[in-house]
């Protein structure tokens, strides 16, 4: 039995007085691709932030490759191979595409030749970025920005990649492309955790899934099983969830879950 890459147990997290996670637990095995689903405000983003060290947990444990990492800072964890593509993308807006990629390579910066080959490899996944190398990240289109965010996260050659709402604001075709790229990355051995509002697309592209509500897991299972049982998910995600009747990931329109999004 392989040791899990990530093992989160009984995690609590607060924003000031607001408790966002209440005994959150999840596991990610090596080479696995896992989805976190849930309505707005369920705690998906907070879970990723706590794991990647952007915020400190107030209770519980986080094991990464068997070692306790709870409370370590983000800048330490990325060095260990944990990359987080955060909500809102968090690019460096006034820096060029190339400089953003160099930033992604920061933890390996001593290897100059390694940078070139990693960059060329990553850029081959996103040819459009090659054409825009000198452009400021803040002036890219939404789709290009998300590609850059994925590319930048891959530059650190992570063992575990956390992705928050890849699909946000993007056309279905681009979302599908990005998911294909994530699956390719996953098949090379990187474990991936995705947070998604588009339930169908998330389940179609992952091995397992967790459904969160009010800061804890209320349902988990194999993605294929959940996909075959849409009523079950719908009952946890609210009545707007509609996962049945889709013919695999070919289908253009993924489903919005949990009502309309609140702009932020």
């Amino acid at each position, binding site marked *: 039995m392989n040791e899990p890459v990530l093992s989160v147990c009984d995690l609590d997290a607060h924003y000031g007085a607001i408790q966002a996670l209440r005994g959150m637990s999840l596991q990610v095995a090596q080479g696995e691709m896992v989805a976190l689903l849930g309505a707005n405000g369920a705690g998906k983003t907070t879970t990723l932030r706590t794991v*990647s060290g*952007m915020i400190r947990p107030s209770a519980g444990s986080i094991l990464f490759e068997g070692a306790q990492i709870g409370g370590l*800072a*983000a*800048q330490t964890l*990325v*060095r260990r191979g944990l*990359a*987080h593509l*955060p909500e809102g993308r*968090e*690019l*460096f*807006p*006034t*820096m060029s595409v190339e*400089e953003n990629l*160099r*930033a*992604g390579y*920061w*933890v390996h*910066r001593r290897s100059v030749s390694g940078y070139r080959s990693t960059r060329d490899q990553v850029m081959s996944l996103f040819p459009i970025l090659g054409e825009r190398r000198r452009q*400021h990240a*803040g*002036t890219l289109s939404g789709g290009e920005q998300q590609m850059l965010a994925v590319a*930048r996260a891959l530059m*650190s050659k992570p063992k575990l990649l956390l992705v928050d709402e890849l699909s946000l604001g993007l056309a279905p075709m681009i979302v599908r492309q990005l998911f294909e790229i994530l699956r390719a990355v996953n098949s090379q051995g990187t474990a991936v955790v995705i947070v998604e509002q588009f339930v169908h697309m998330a389940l179609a592209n992952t091995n397992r899934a967790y459904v969160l509500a009010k800061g804890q897991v209320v349902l988990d299972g194999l993605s294929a099983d959940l996909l075959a049982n849409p009523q079950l998910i719908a009952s946890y995600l609210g009545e707007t969830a509609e996962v049945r009747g889709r013919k695999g990931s070919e289908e253009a329109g993924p489903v919005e879950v949990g009502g309309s999004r609140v702009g932020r």
Partner: protein
Amino acid sequence: MNELKLVADHVILALPLIGAYALFGLGIVVIYRASRVLNLAHGAMVMLPGYIAYSAAPRVGPALGLLVGILSGGVLGVLVERLVVRRLRPISQTAQTVGTVAVFAVLVALAAKVWGTEVLPGVTVVPRHAYQVGVAVVSSDDLALFVVAAIASAFFFALFRFTSLGLAMRLAADNRRAAALMGIDPERTTSAAWLIAGLFAGLGGVLLAGATGLHPYINSLDVLPAFVAVLIGGLESTSGALVGSVAVGLAIGLVPSVGFIGDQEGAPQLVLAIVAFVIMALRGRKFQASDVRSALA
């Protein structure tokens, strides 16, 4: 013809001012980018190293005195950030700015207490010599200030362009949270920014004191035009700060040579205010036209 010559002579007189404002302005910009705070303690970080070099020089000689002064500026910068600005960050940006004002007041009072308010001679590092250029007389101190500032500015830009530390500082300034996710410690880049700004303030402060003498208030207020230079450059732009320093240095240096207002008290300051106002108004308009996209993002 004669008038042109007069102006040319005064350009030479403006050189040390341009140099000093560049050294101060680059520091103010770097601090603003790192901490999002306009460092109103900058004047004190310029003045105090002048005194420290003054006190050190009789023991260690003028060259080492200069070095001690520069380093004291760096130490002062790091301390101000660690002890005051960083602690006030969770409260608000305004609190941080007010904090720097408090630091300014404390340091000026401290200097007045220790060294008094009589004008003292600053440390002169280069042998004193006066050159006659047309009608203008320029001293070796003044020239040294300009040359040293030019070299330091070149180092500064090379640091930001070509080193990992420079890239880290630019990344953290652009997006602190993202920088942390990339593996950069934003607290360290912030400290580095204050260190560099402090070293530059120390360098400029000691050299300026050598040229003008030392006084707790006067030397602290010598920094004010550098704030105007930085505003002209757009507060966040290092190259803009350089351009602003040239504009401000020339304004202050040249105005006295202009016939009808030049001999009025406060004329350079008035011209400076007008220059700053016009440039910022123009910048404001350009901003609206070209940066709509990034403003919306």
